[in-house]
């Protein structure tokens, strides 16, 4: 087996530096829409590869793309026919279960699995020597999962729930019984689970040695190679937007007003409805995996490397999956265990985490303590921004607070230092707009405070300091819809006070060029699109059908979408709002190329040029002679071959990427407005109304985009008011490792929400689309916090804004 410590997982955020931008044999110049319709729409000329399809018109000239289109797979979801990983049942399948650490910090003195192995119904037992897979730190010098038991190689246990051993048995119950039979002798060690305690001198160390960064899927925070002192690692002083700028100290000296604050955000857990899990079926000729994952290829790549298999011998299938929100990348410790157990037992093994394991071991949004200071001139010009942050991703890394302070507003002097703090808790993971959500809570409250000091309306002030044209339009349209009328903070009389607030956020436009799709036209007119990309609930299947249908002049429901299987060309991982922008241009280009093949055959028959032909409303016709017309279905019946097939990959952005080979600068902007009621007797905050104005390039399917925005807003409401992972400092346990005491919003807590989707063209690709998952979630908590301030006249600097914090802020307790 390969050494997993040497393994490098390519981060979706990391630009591919192997080659620069791609050159093309033949190019052509096309004119593409650019700007915002009704505001500044114009055309821009780009030189693109000659293989590229013609420019796609703005949405109102299209028939499928941009239209409210029902999910093509919804019928399987409302009938229960959709099979998720947890529903997979294979012949002879066993159930896997973990023995997990009952101690936050301990060494294993001895371990005896003999009784578990003898237990009736048990087929395999495996002791982990390391915890591989997922966003988890490993001990230095440890190898990949050992097939044999080496007591000297047993890992140090660093959090409650860390996997120690796994069992595969004929039923879930027998597996659990066997786990109970494993005898372990522990040597317990001092531990620390609290951020502040962990930073103190003399705090129990989580890692004795320097930790090398190992992460998957879009974590943001302490950079690899940064310093490490005690439990503190870092600082990161830059991001892919660059390093420090200007002279911050001088900037403050030249400022007329300086505002600062210490903000804190809590640990949030992902709470996807389907837990992490895998079914592994090890056969001599093929390892087949069913995974609840956001990236089929990341699971395949992890397992191929760990088990020394060629990529061709690992197949990962994710037909339906029950949500991820950033935590479901890579094989995971459970995935590796399931494969080991399957290999050992010769049976397929299903290993789904239970809710408690999910809450404690499968990732979370790290907490933060942010010291943010901003200096401004009397006219409001930002002079200096200084940010220091600490956060803990437990034994993992990536507790940064993102890039909003660095990048949302124009400020020539900027400095930041972001630190990771190790604690004896489960690892963090990427979580819907990692870092930016935490950072926005601090930044947008301080910007609000500056506006007040300058006696400016918060929106008018942002108009002054924000260069983004998209957000300008969002502020304007949002304010109109919201009925924005500034009022004095705390001016409501009565016990229940109302307030309004606004906040904005952004997320970079990230593209994975390793995104490919095949389009196949079959005799008889059926059309398929195939890709390894997965639909994690965002609606990827439907937008792929729309894009292909638009190109072929068909309806979305005419297209069969086969995705979520590494048998097909690799798709992007679905995280960081990369999916729509990465895979839809590949899909359209493949459809276009398949279409050209079909039209080539038709053109030969009709003795016309291909360029004279087009497809529309299920027909192929010659533009020069309208009598030449044939249905798409009839045309396919005459195809020379049974199938026409074309595969395309995501080309570079038209005009090239701005950062590396992955990132575009025109940010996915969002402006959210909130109205709240605060009961000043009980401290209870109720969010009454949210207006969310968003952009995601060309909107492909407004019905799905609205739902994504609403979901982001409600996740933000949960983050603002309810959700909080609570660790017991005395025992190191998570107190609320369930969905009872870990509070999510339910149907009765839902405010009125209105959406505004700004159609915006950047001429970046053949679809010019972007994702919406992350931006939907960035600004909500900050907008609510600003509204709470407006209601009660006192700021709350810590999330979640629970009733006791409100009353404490009002100084009644």
């Amino acid at each position, binding site marked *: 087996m390969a050494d997993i410590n040497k393994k490098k997982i390519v981060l979706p955020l990391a630009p591919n530096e192997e080659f620069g931008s791609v050159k093309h044999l033949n190019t052509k110049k096309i004119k593409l829409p650019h700007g915002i319709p009704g505001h500044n729409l114009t055309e821009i000329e780009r030189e693109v590869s000659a293989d590229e399809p013609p420019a796609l018109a703005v949405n109102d000239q299209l028939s499928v793309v941009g239209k409210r289109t029902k999910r093509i797979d919804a019928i399987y979801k*409302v*009938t*229960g026919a*959709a099979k998720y990983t947890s529903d997979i049942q294979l012949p002879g399948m066993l159930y896997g279960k973990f023995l997990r650490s009952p101690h936050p910090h301990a060494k294993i003195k001895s371990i005896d699995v003999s009784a578990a192995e003898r237990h009736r119904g048990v087929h395999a037992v495996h002791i982990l020597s390391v915890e591989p897979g997922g966003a988890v730190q490993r001990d230095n010098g440890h190898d990949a999962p050992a097939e044999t038991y080496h007591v000297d190689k047993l890992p140090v246990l660093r959090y409650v729930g860390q996997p120690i051993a796994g069992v595969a048995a004929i039923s879930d119950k027998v597996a659990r019984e066997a786990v109970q039979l494993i005898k372990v002798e522990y040597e317990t060690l001092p531990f620390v689970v609290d951020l502040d305690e962990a930073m103190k001198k003399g705090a129990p160390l989580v890692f004795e040695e320097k930790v090398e960064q190992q992460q998957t899927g879009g974590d943001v925070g302490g950079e690899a190679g940064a310093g490490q002192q005690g439990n503190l690692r870092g600082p990161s002083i830059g991001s892919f937007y660059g390093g420090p700028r200007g002279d911050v100290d001088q900037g403050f000296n030249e400022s007329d007003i300086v505002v600062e604050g210490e903000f804190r955000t809590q640990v949030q857990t992902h709470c996807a409805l*389907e837990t992490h899990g895998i079914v592994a079926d090890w056969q001599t000729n093929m390892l087949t995996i069913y995974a609840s994952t956001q990236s089929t290829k990341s699971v395949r790549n992890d397992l191929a490397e760990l088990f020394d298999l060629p990529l061709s011998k690992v197949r990962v299938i994710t037909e339906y999956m029950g*949500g991820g929100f950033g935590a479901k990348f890579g094989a995971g410790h459970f995935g590796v265990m399931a494969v080991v157990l399957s290999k050992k037992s010769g049976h397929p093994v299903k290993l789904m985490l239970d809710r408690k394991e999910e809450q404690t071991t499968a990732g979370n949004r790290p907490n933060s303590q942010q010291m943010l200071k901003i200096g401004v001139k009397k006219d409001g010009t930002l002079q200096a921004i200084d940010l220091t942050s600490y956060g803990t991703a437990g034994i993992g890394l990536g507790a940064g607070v993102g890039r909003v302070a660095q990048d949302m507003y124009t400020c020539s002097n900027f400095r930041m230092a972001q630190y990771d703090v190790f604690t004896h808790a489960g690892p963090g993971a990427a979580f819907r707009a990692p870092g930016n959500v935490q950072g926005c809570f601090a930044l947008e409250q301080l910007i609000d405070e500056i506006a007040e000091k300058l006696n400016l309306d918060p929106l008018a002030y942002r108009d002054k300091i924000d260069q983004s044209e998209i957000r300008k339009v969002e502020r304007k349209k949002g304010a109109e819809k919201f009925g924005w009328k500034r009022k004095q903070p705390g001016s409501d009389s009565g016990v229940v006070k109302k307030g309004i607030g606004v906040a904005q956020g952004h997320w970079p436009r990230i593209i994975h060029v390793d995104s490919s799709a095949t389009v196949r036209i079959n005799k008889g007119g059926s059309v398929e699109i195939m890709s390894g990309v997965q639909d994690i609930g965002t609606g990827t299947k439907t937008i792929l059908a729309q894009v292909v249908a638009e190109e072929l002049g068909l309806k979305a429901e005419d297209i069969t979408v086969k995705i979520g299987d590494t048998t097909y060309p690799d798709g992007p991982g679905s995280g960081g709002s990369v999916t729509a922008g990465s895979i839809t241009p590949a899909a359209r280009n493949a459809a276009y190329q398949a279409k050209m093949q079909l039209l080539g055959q038709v053109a030969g028959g009709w003795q016309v040029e291909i360029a004279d032909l087009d497809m529309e409303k299920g027909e192929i016709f010659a533009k020069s002679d309208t009598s030449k017309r044939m249905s798409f279905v009839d045309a396919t019946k005459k195809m020379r071959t049974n199938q026409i097939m074309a595969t395309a990959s995501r080309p570079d952005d038209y005009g090239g990427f701005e950062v590396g080979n992955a990132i575009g600068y025109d940010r996915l902007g969002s402006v959210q407005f909130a109205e709240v009621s605060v009961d000043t007797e009980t401290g209870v905050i109720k969010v009454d109304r949210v207006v969310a104005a968003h952009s995601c390039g060309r909107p492909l399917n407004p019905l799905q985009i609205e739902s994504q925005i609403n979901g982001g807003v409600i996740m933000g409401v949960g983050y603002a008011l309810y959700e909080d992972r609570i660790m017991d400092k005395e025992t190191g346990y998570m107190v609320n490792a369930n969905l009872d005491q870990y509070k999510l919003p339910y149907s009765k807590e839902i405010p009125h929400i209105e959406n505004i989707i700004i159609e915006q063209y950047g001429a970046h690709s053949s679809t010019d689309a972007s994702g919406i998952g992350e931006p939907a979630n960035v600004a909500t908590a900050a907008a609510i916090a600003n509204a709470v301030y407006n209601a009660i006249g006192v700021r709350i600097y810590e999330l979640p804004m629970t009733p006791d914090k409100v009353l404490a802020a009002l100084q009644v307790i």
Partner: protein
Amino acid sequence: MIEFILNDRKIRTDKPSGLPLLDFIRYEQSLTGTKIGCREGDCGACNVLVGHLQDGQMKYLPITSCLTPIGNVQGKQVVTVEGLNMEDLSPVQQYMVDEAGTQCGFCTVGFIVSLTGYCLSHSTPDYKAAIAAIDGNICRCTGYKSIERAARHITNALAGKDTRETVDWLVERKFIPPYFKEIPNMLQTIGAENGGQKNGVLVGGGTDLYVQKHDQLLDREVDLVANHPNWRFITIKNGVCTLGGATTVTDVQESDALQTLFPRLTQHLKLVASSPIRNISTLAGNFVNASPIGDLTAFFLALNAKIELTEDDKSRTIFLKDFYKGYKDLDKTKGENITAISFIIPPANSHFNLEKVSKRIHLDIASVNTAAQIIVESGVIADAHISAGGVGPTPIYLKDTCAFLMGKPLTPELIRAAIDVLQSEISPISDVRGSENYKRLLLRQLFYAHFIKLFPNQISLEVLA
């Protein structure tokens, strides 16, 4: 042997009665539409409908199948999403598709089942009731707005619903498959008895027991309170209201008699758990659980209720307030069960109120709760029973505070003065639900709230503040 109908099929199984219904559906019957989200009754992904014959009609209630021992569905019909599927989508399914009410889809079947339960209810369609029907379903993707839109369409489509012959009406409009009409006849052929052994672990609703001890119960026989019909009743006789220990929260909520006694009963009970949980959780379970913050305990303490404890054929009756000796320490022998709860019907001039504050308004364990029953005659407090939860190791009957109030004129000064007494008889601790100071403050505010709400002419916030 347990017998019931699963969708349209008769099931006979020798599985132990303690096996969770969810496991039976998924593993024994391979019906995987019903999902496992949390296994603790919090997410609703495993919701199914349970139908039984009541007064000649089928009555359907959504329940969380993860917390329901299979013995509890003896003689009933269980409906999973597979049992709702027809050639075409039902309007519930169709509107969820049309409005993008499903994203990842993992929670969706639970919503479909809960919303179909709303359709099957014998009450007049009402959008608020539709939203209440999904109060126990978590969706992490959609933000619920698209589901709200679907709920509106469904409510509109139910206009003119026959609230008596509901099943027929729904079958005609293809909300449910035609086989539903045959279910009453099929049920006649199955006994409602049995389903458990009297010597097994006694299980009420199982809403806490199956969270805590799922592993220990799944292969055991359990003794279900559902199989003791004599423990499930609500009677009013000689000025005393008596409820069986197995009475569910929904039974209380739907009782005409209790609604008349407590006009705000529905509002109070909406703050207790979610619909599927209220449908199975029992009064006795809530009392015996001895949570210091039990909502129903606070409710009945303020009614100065008595409980009947029975072992074999021996019974004794004690005041509920005397039941709690310390944290989870009860005046109860191992063999005793709460078989009945009784309280004297408050006189017409009595006032009752319940207050609860939690981090999340609905479906949350209270930080502090309190209930009060107060009689004022000629401006003087003639009787007062006040309870408080979350401010000590047990649910508390505030006897010193009540004694202090008795016989004194109802004035703002008195209420303010009572706070000192109140604070002296509670002992809250700082925990996940709030700090000690916060809970003390909260109880003061809620104590005030009782009087402000019940006696608005004499007491207002302004005069108390």
